[in-house]
């Protein structure tokens, strides 16, 4: 089994009183190593629900989900936690950094929940993750002393630090202006191209999706489109062509 994600006939239903809402309805797809996928769709189409399941935060109501060969549906809560810790990285729209905690300590956080990692390794890994997001010069800054884009880069470093098989991002550029969004996309493209990270990126902006290699579009919990993007834009180029602001 060479694919990282294998989803077969997956359904996620929520019971609301007597009604059941199927947020995801019979979804099947696979993700191979090194892919960079965007998940698109209008509000309420099930993007976050899908990402939660991909991220092992939630379990399918029916259908199957294999993550890196593991059948997620059969795992206990603690096993799910361990899987998230070892195999996944999350990037959120609102960064979710611990307040009053330095950048490096925020990045270290996932490794504190891994017994196999010594304090020395933890420091080294956190440093190299910060290096990958080009923030070593801000390692002792607190979140409140960082810009939105920098905070999101710390969050990306935190998602990288445990060397996950897949990074999941939910509207990771949703709180940022377009220039900063492009900078983040440039960083993520680099992680994908240079470091070979597999990335799933939820967004409802087609502009952002155009930086990814493949786009899955949802509507009412079903996949209505699953296209390979033949014309991936390079965030670096877009940034260079942005008009420079002058006062």
């Amino acid at each position, binding site marked *: 089994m060479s694919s990282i994600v294998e989803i077969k006939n997956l359904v996620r239903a929520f019971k609301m009183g007597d009604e059941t809402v199927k947020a995801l309805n019979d979804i099947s797809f696979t993700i191979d190593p090194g892919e960079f996928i965007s998940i698109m769709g209008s509000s309420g189409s099930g993007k976050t629900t899908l990402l939660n399941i991909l991220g092992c935060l939630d379990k399918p109501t029916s259908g199957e989900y294999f993550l890196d060969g593991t059948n997620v549906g059969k795992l206990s809560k*603690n096993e799910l936690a361990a899987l998230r810790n070892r195999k996944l990285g999350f990037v959120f729209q609102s960064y979710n950094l611990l307040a009053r905690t330095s950048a490096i300590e925020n990045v270290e956080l996932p490794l504190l*929940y891994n017994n196999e990692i010594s304090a020395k390794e933890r420091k080294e890994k956190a440093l190299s993750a910060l290096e990958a997001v080009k923030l070593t010069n801000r390692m002792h800054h607190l979140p409140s002393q960082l810009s939105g884009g920098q905070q999101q880069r710390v969050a990306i470093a935190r998602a990288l630090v*445990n060397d996950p098989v897949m990074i999941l991002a939910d509207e990771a550029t949703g709180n940022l202006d377009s220039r900063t969004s492009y900078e983040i996309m440039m960083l993520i493209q680099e992680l994908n191209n240079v470091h070979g990270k597999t990335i799933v990126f939820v967004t409802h902006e087609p502009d952002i999706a155009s930086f990814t290699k493949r786009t899955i579009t949802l509507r009412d919990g079903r996949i209505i489109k699953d296209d390979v993007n033949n014309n991936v834009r390079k965030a670096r180029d877009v940034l260079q062509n942005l008009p420079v602001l002058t006062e």
Partner: protein
Amino acid sequence: MKITNLLRIAWRAIQRNKMRAFLTMLGIIIGVAAVISMIAIGQGSKQSIQSQISGMGSNMITIRPISNVTGGARMDNTSVQALSEPDVVALQKHPQYLNAVSPSLSARGQAINGPYNWSTSLQGVSPDYLSIRGWPLQDGNPFTNQDVKTAAKVCLVGQTVINNLFPNGEAVVGKSIRFKNIPFKIVGVLSKKGENTFGQDQDDVILTPITTVQKRVLATIYYQTIFASAADENSTEKAAEEIQQTLRISHRLQKGTDDDFTVRTQAELISTFSSTSRILTILLAVIAGISLVVGGIGIMNIMYVSVTERTKEIGLRMSIGARGTDILMQFLIEAVLIGVTGGLIGVALGITAAKLVTTLLHWPTLVTQASVLLSFMVCFATGVFFGYYPALKASRLDPIEALHYE
């Protein structure tokens, strides 16, 4: 999860909110400080009372007859006919644990020197009495065993008696005084002993040979009390047992009958005092308990607030791989750290307060290891007990809901 990592996480969380952590600790700090300092004061005064009691002669053993009830009328000590010369002789034959034995019999009356008179007590004893009480003479010499044999009319006088009968400060050895119209020659002066633990003036006494009181004053062959001193402090209990056996034989008491005398050691006297201070200690413990419960509720309250406030953080931690137990332990350790840190500060503050009381008020204080250890353990337990429910609540959060909590 490694305990060091848990500690690190909890400690960082406290560090992030120092002021609040401190305010939460305040209840514990004040409670522990109060307990430590009050126990220190209690122990200090207890110790000083103990040293006062042992100042009366810590090896001293007191034997008294039990006043039995006859015809509904309780007879006074003098008429209890239980202790007499054969008892003293019997005790002197068992010297393994006993250094000295002295009978004692007191009579109250008026002592007169010319125009001065003073109501005091005449206590008949043997020469050994002075060593039993650890009571040196200030002047003159003690009376002798020969004086006891002849029921000599000689006496040793206490300071209070001298002050009242010889107010002009002249030398008194060799002078005569009258007690109940019997002339006594003063052969020695007792050094000042002061008040005893019960506030009685120990210097208000005239000592004379036991036989003199028996024959010339009270006309009795019995004793009120027998004083003895154990060979050393550690063997007092053993000595008391031996005395009991010896006296039972000398009184020909059948098996199964009660003793007609009591044997008291200084240790028992001390324990009588300890029982009063035990009540005080229980009271203190109750106050301590209340203040620690109040402190604990403070911790619980803040931990609940903290869990709610940090719901998003909990969601994040879960999303990056924290298990329910990790979260539980994090908050539990946080609560315990707050409790224990508060306890530490409280102990330091309590010791300082005790020191201040000693230097400023000159009260004796004694900080015991046990009180420090105990308050520390109680703080730990308080943290665990009051931190558990908030921590459990945190550990049971759903990661998705927690992440989206605003």
